[in-house]
């Protein structure tokens, strides 16, 4: 798990809020200006830094900083993986990169998939440096505005000025060289309809995006569980020294893959059982979660969300088809 440091940083953030007497994000531009992400870079491999988010859901208290972002110093510049939930986060990330590795040019920014916590910081980077598979770009164009609206609702002023910027470069090669470093690129799906995984061939760090979660419950708004499970199988077979999951601590042992796979398999089986008994969604939401998942952040919340995401397809699959007489 993460050290105590990020927790106390978050506490400071909340105290900062309270000390200004501002309980909501809408009550004035002066108070709102104090909103700031206190990002911290952890060197997880040589010249490779992770910026860990909280193992939580989007809340005013965390500003949506729930995601892992990373940057790498390659021989001729910087490569960034994912950009966070807001323009303000993007700005903080840029500043953090500049503090950590001053004076380097950002050559490439990868977006692993189209979920808002992973790409809404794109705005502060040059669009022609931002790259993703075409399908990720399509998903961002189709759903990005809706995500942004919803995050404004959940996060208020943290989202100020945030606009959707889709990657300017569509990738299809299985590898590319950026600034003197070779990256292997994997085109998978299952967490969403397009999940993009990047491996730094020099350090062996695998940036799994949200195909892998660790000590934070996996999210399923666009999930296809059989495809996701297959994608995890694929990741298991890729040579690597370390995984940076989309959420949770960096993972030298591949625990994020087995934990995510275990959770998904339980989730699918449990919901099939619920649908098989004709449960309502509300009854399914009340079902117990096995103790082995108790250490996954926000597991009850995510389980309840997953019921809504997955239940209806299972009803269509498992219920008896009825011959209806029409007149």
């Amino acid at each position: 798990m993460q050290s105590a440091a990020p927790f106390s940083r978050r506490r400071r953030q909340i105290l900062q809020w309270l000390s200004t007497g501002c309980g909501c994000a809408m009550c004035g531009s002066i108070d709102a200006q104090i909103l700031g992400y206190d990002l911290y870079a952890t060197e997880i491999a040589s010249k490779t830094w992770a910026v860990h988010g909280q193992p939580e859901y989007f809340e005013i208290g965390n500003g949506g900083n729930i995601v892992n972002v990373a940057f790498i110093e390659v021989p001729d510049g910087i490569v960034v993986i994912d950009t966070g939930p807001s323009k303000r986060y993007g700005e903080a990330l840029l500043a953090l990169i500049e503090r950590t590795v001053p004076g380097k040019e950002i050559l490439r920014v990868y977006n692993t998939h189209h979920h808002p916590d992973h790409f809404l910081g794109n705005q502060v980077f040059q669009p022609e440096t931002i790259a993703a598979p075409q399908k990720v770009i399509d998903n961002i164009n189709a759903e990005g505005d809706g995500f942004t609206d919803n995050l404004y609702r959940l996060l208020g002023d943290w989202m100020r000025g945030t606009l959707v910027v889709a990657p300017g470069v569509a990738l299809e090669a299985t590898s590319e060289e950026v600034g003197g470093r070779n990256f292997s690129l994997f085109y998978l799906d299952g967490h969403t309809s397009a999940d993009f995984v990047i491996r730094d061939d020099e350090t062996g760090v695998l940036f799994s995006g949200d195909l892998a979660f660790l000590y934070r419950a996996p999210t399923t708004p666009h999930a296809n569980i059989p495809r996701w499970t297959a994608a995890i199988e694929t990741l298991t077979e890729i040579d690597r020294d370390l995984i940076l999951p989309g959420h949770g601590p960096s993972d030298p042992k591949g625990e994020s893959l087995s934990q995510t796979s275990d959770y998904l398999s339980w989730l699918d089986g449990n919901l099939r059982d619920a649908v098989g008994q004709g449960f309502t969604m509300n009854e399914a939401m009340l079902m117990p979660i096995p103790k082995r998942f108790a250490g996954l952040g926000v597991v009850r919340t995510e389980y309840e969300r997953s019921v809504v995401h997955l239940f209806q397809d299972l009803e269509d699959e498992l219920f008896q088809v009825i011959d209806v007489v029409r007149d």
Partner: protein
Amino acid sequence: MITTINRIVASIFVLLVSVQSLQAREVQADPLNSVMWNNMVERFMPDGDVIFDPRVKVIAPVSAEDQFYVPITVDATELENVDRVIAVADLNPIPLVLTVTPHQALSFIGFRLKLQQSSPIHVGVRTTDGVWHVGGVLVDAAGGGCTAPAAAHMNSNWMKTLGETRAFAGRDLSGSARMTLRMRHPMDTGLAAGIPAFYLNELSVETEDGVPIADLELFEPVSENPTLTIKPDVGDEATTITVSGRDTEGNNYRFPLSLPAVAAAAASRTN
């Protein structure tokens, strides 16, 4: 001048009469402080005392993950002699969601509704003495559940699958019969641009011999592809239940559903 006095006298009279009729029944204040509570009572629970009763359990998520499908389960099985159940979403542009008249069914209903914004959901359960027993819950939601086109309209041939039905019919661990019906229907509210209201509005559940089990009236806020769970009170033996429905364009839908015996259901679980 005289006309004015007459008007004043008349309005005082009207006022007194209306105060009188309000005092004639008890209407408890809403613990959820809904600004629409009095309006909901006047429109949908026009007669009888209205009391909040913990025996009316309304189960809903605190926050709607999907404003088009907000799952609600109502369990008022602790109440005896229930003759009507109604559900309203106070802040929806069309608040009335559904009514249930249980004849030979437990006062239990599962359904999904569309929410236009965060709203209190109130469920009134009327007992045969005329008293409304009410439960409620607040659901936080993103906006727009009632004014966006149904997902069906993204499919060019949605009319082909209209009325397609899937169902579950089985027994709880307690032996109670339970059925969940799921029918393809856009349940158009009429509030999305260019799409008139079109929804399944009547559903009757009967025994094989035509004895009514439950009658449901559905309204615009019921989610697309309505999925309804009810508990018929039809004994332990295997039986066939007849379901008939009708939508606002006069399409009729009718189908039988086989309910297993308690023993058979228990045996299939142990297998």
